[in-house]
C-alpha cells in the first residue's frame, strides 16, 4: 500500500489571478488531504472556477503557485495531469459518439491500454450507473446522465485528486443525492476531492472542510459547524456616545470579547464575539460604567452575509 505522503494532495499557496482590473482570485491558500472532501463555497463570480482551472493546469496564476501531490501546476503540468481528474462546469461533447466510446477515448487519452483500459471503462460505467446506457449517443443524454458521464470521464484513469466544478448544479434532488453519494465514495477510496458550489447546503453533508470565498478572497476555512458558529458569533457593533467616544476606548480594550476598535468623534465601532445575550450584557455594563450611550447597533460581519447568501443559494 501507499504510505501517507509528507505533502497534502492539493495545496494552494498564495494564489492570485487577475484579468486586467478584475481581481478574480486574491491570495488564496488552503490544503486538502487524501480522503478529504473540501467544499469551495461562494456566490457566482467569487473566483471558484478560476482557482479550479489553475489547479487543473488550464490557466496560469498571476502570482503564487498551486501543487498537486507536491508538483507545481505551473512548472510540471505534465506530472500534475497524470494524477488529476478535472470536471469543468461544462460538458465537452463529440458528435457520433456513444457513452462507451466516449469513456474509451478518454481512457486511451490517459494512456490506458489493453485489458487495463477495458476494465477502467467498465469500472467507470459501473460506478456512475451508466452500464445500461453504454450504446447510447452522448448527445441524447439527460442533464443528470451527462453529469454522471462527466464524472465517469473524470475518474476513468483513477486519479488521486479530483476537482469538480459545481457537480450538483442544475440537478434534480434525486440526481443530486446520487452524485453526492458517488463523491463520498470517491473520498472513502482515499482521493482528495475539491468541489465547488454556490449553495452551502447542497454539499454540507459530504464536505469535511469548507472554504468560503467571496470576491476572490478566502474568508474562512473550517468544518461546516465551525464556520456557522463563527459567523453567528462575530458581529460588528456601533455605539454613539454623547460628547465624544474617546473615553470608551480604554474601557473597551480591557474586555476580551471586543476587537478591532475604531473611534471617530462620537462614534465607536468594534467587533464583538459572543451571542445576542452577551450583547445585552455588554450594553448594560457600558451604561452601568456611566457612559452616555445614545445609540447602540449591531450588524452581521460580512462573513455572515456571504454565509447567508451561500446557505440560501441566492445569486448576487
Amino acid at each position, binding site marked *: 500500500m501507499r504510505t501517507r505522503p509528507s*505533502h497534502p494532495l492539493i495545496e494552494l499557496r498564495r494564489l492570485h489571478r487577475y484579468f486586467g482590473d478584475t481581481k478574480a482570485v486574491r491570495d488564496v491558500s488552503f490544503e486538502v488531504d487524501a480522503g478529504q472532501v473540501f467544499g469551495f463555497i461562494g456566490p457566482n463570480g467569487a473566483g471558484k472556477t478560476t482557482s479550479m482551472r489553475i489547479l487543473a493546469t488550464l490557466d496560469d496564476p498571476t502570482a503564487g503557485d498551486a501543487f498537486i501531490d507536491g508538483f*507545481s501546476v505551473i512548472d510540471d503540468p505534465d506530472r500534475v495531469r497524470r494524477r*488529476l481528474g478535472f470536471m469543468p462546469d461544462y460538458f465537452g461533447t463529440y458528435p457520433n459518439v456513444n457513452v462507451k466510446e466516449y469513456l474509451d477515448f478518454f481512457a486511451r*487519452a490517459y494512456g490506458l491500454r489493453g485489458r487495463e483500459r477495458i476494465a477502467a471503462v467498465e469500472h467507470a460505467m459501473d460506478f456512475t450507473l451508466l452500464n445500461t446506457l453504454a450504446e447510447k449517443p452522448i448527445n441524447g443524454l439527460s442533464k443528470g446522465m451527462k453529469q454522471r458521464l462527466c464524472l465517469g470521464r473524470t475518474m476513468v484513469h483513477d486519479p488521486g485528486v479530483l476537482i469538480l466544478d459545481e457537480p450538483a448544479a442544475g440537478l434534480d434532488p434525486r440526481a443530486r443525492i446520487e452524485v453526492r453519494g458517488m463523491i463520498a465514495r470517491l473520498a472513502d477510496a482515499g482521493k482528495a476531492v475539491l468541489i465547488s458550489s454556490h449553495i452551502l447546503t447542497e454539499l454540507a453533508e459530504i464536505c469535511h472542510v469548507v472554504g468560503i470565498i467571496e470576491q476572490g478572497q478566502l474568508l474562512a476555512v473550517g468544518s461546516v459547524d465551525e464556520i456557522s458558529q463563527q459567523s453567528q458569533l462575530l458581529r460588528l457593533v456601533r455605539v454613539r456616545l454623547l460628547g465624544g467616544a474617546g473615553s470608551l476606548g480604554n474601557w473597551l480594550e480591557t474586555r476580551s470579547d471586543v476587537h478591532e476598535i475604531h473611534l471617530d468623534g462620537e462614534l465607536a465601532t468594534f467587533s464583538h464575539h459572543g451571542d445576542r445575550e452577551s450583547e445585552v450584557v455588554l450594553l448594560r455594563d457600558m451604561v452601568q460604567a456611566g457612559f452616555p450611550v445614545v445609540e447602540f447597533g449591531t450588524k452581521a460581519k460580512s462573513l455572515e452575509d456571504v454565509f447567508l447568501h451561500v446557505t440560501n443559494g441566492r445569486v448576487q
Partner: protein
Amino acid sequence: MIETPKPVASSERFLATIAVTDRGQMVWEHIEAWLARMGDRLNPILVKETRQAIKSRQFTLTFVLVLAAVWITTFAGIAIMGPSIYYSASGPGMFWAYYWILAFPLAVVVPYGAYRSLAAEREDNTYELLSISTLTPRQIIWGKLASAFVQLLVYLSAVAPCLAFTYLLRGMDILSIALLLAYTVLGSMGLSVIGLLLATATKERYGQVLLSVLFVLALFGVFIGAVQLAYFFIEEGYQILGDFEFWIVNLAILTAYGTTFGIVFLAATAQITFTSDNRSTPLRIAMLIQMACFIGWMAYACFYVVQESTRRGNRIAPVEEIVLTASIVCGVYWFIMGTMMTAESPVLSRRVQRGLPRSYLGRLFLTWFNPGPGTGYVFAIANLTSVILMGFIILTVVPSWYTISTFNAVSFDQIFYFHIIGIGYVTLYLGIGKYLISLIRHFAAVPIAAAVLLQAFLVALGCLVPLMIQITFYPPGYRGYSLLHASNLFWSLAEIVDRGTLPQEAYTLVLLIPSLALLVFFLNFRAIAREVRHERIELPARIVEEEAAMRPPAAPQPQSPWDNTG
C-alpha cells in the same frame, strides 16, 4: 422434394459444423485480439475519429458523391470517345478528368477537415479536456494528421482503380501516374498540417471566421493550381521524366517539403504546449536543419554549374549569382524567423531553467537555442552571418579548384558590399523591432502576429517616408536613388548589384548601416545579457523523489560468472 437425411450422417455433419465454427471462432477471436492490440498502439484521436467518421452522414455523403462522380465520368468518357477508345491514346484525357475528382477532396476537403476538426475541439470545449489528459501536444497533432490521412486514403481508394484504368487506355505511363499521385498526397498532408497550425493560431471567434474563409479561398487556389500543373505534367511531363536533373530537382523539392512540414508541425505543437515548457528550442533546431539542407543544395548547385561549364568547355560559370540568390533567400528567411523569435517572452520559466547547459562550451554554443527574444535575435543574426561566410568560402574555393572564372555578371566588390550591408539591415531592423516590442511589453502582451505586423510596418516606414520626402521636396520627375533612401533596404540593396559597378552611395552605406546596426545591437545588449546569464536550477525535491521511486535501485547484477554460483 424433401430429402430426409439419415440420422447418423446428420449428427456427424452437425458435429463437424461445430468443430468448424469452433475453429472459426478461435481464428476470429485471435484476429480480434490482434486488432485490439494494434488499436492500442494507434493514436487515441485516430481511433476516435475513425469511429466517428464511420457513423458520420457527412463523410458517407462525400464518399458517395466522389464515387458517383467517378462513375459518371467513366461512362461519359467512354460514350464520348466511342470506338476511338480502341486505337487512340485516350489515357491522358481521362486521367485529367479523374484527377479533378481526386484533387478536390485532397486539396480542399481533407485539409479543411483537419482545420475544422481542431478548431471545433476548441469551440466545443473538448480541447481543454484533451489538453489536460496525458496526451502530448505532439500526439494531438499527429492524431489529427493521421485522421486526415485515413480520410485521404478512403478518397484515394475510390478513385485509384480508375486511374489504373487510364493506364490501360494508353498514353499514360505508370511513372507519371505514381509521381502525380505521390505529390498530390504529400500536398494534401502539407495543407492539412498548415490547417492545424491555423486552427491553433487564434481563439477568438472573429479571427477564426476570418481565418477559415481565407484558408478555404487559398485551398481553392491550390486546387485550381494543382489541376493545371497536372495538365501541364500530363502533356509535357514524359519528356523530362528521363532527365537526371528532373530527379535532382524532385529531391530538392522533397527536402524543402520535409523540412517545412517539420517546422509547421512543430509550430502547431508549440502553440498548444503549456506556457512553462520549452516551445522554442525544437523549432530553432528545425530551422537550423532546414537551413543546412538549403545550403547543401545550393552548394550542390554551384558544383553542378561549374561541372556543366567545364564539360561544355566553357570557362565561365555563374557561381556568384547562385550565391547571391541563396543569401537573399537566407536573408529573408532569417529576417522573418528572427521577427518571430524576437516576439518570444523574455521570462525563462523555471522548467526551462532546469535544463540549461552547464558546461562552458555548452553555454557558449547552446544558449542561443534557449527561448527568449535576445537569444532569438542573436540566433538569427549568427545564422545569417555564417551562411554568408559559407557563401564566400564557396565563391573562393570552387572557381580556384576548377580553374573557372566567376564574377562576370556581378563584381566581387558588389557581392562583398551587398552582404555586409545586408547583414547590417537585418541586424538593424530586427533590433529596432525587438527593442520596441520590449517597450510595448510593459503595457500589453505582444502576440507573434502583432510582432510580425510591427516589423512589416517598420520596414514599410523605412521605404515610404523617404519616398514621401522625395515626392514633396524634390523637383517633379526626379526618381533617382540617393542616400535619402538609406532606410529603404530593398532599393539600397538592389542599387548595389543592379549595374556592373558599385554605385557612389555604397561607400557611405557600408559605413552607415553596419554602424547603426551595431548601435542598435548595443541598445539591446543589456536585455540579451540578462537572458544569457541564467544558470541551471536544481530539480525540485518532489521530482527527484518521484524519479527515484519510478526507477528503483537496480538489483545487484552479477559482476562475474562466479558471483552467481552461490
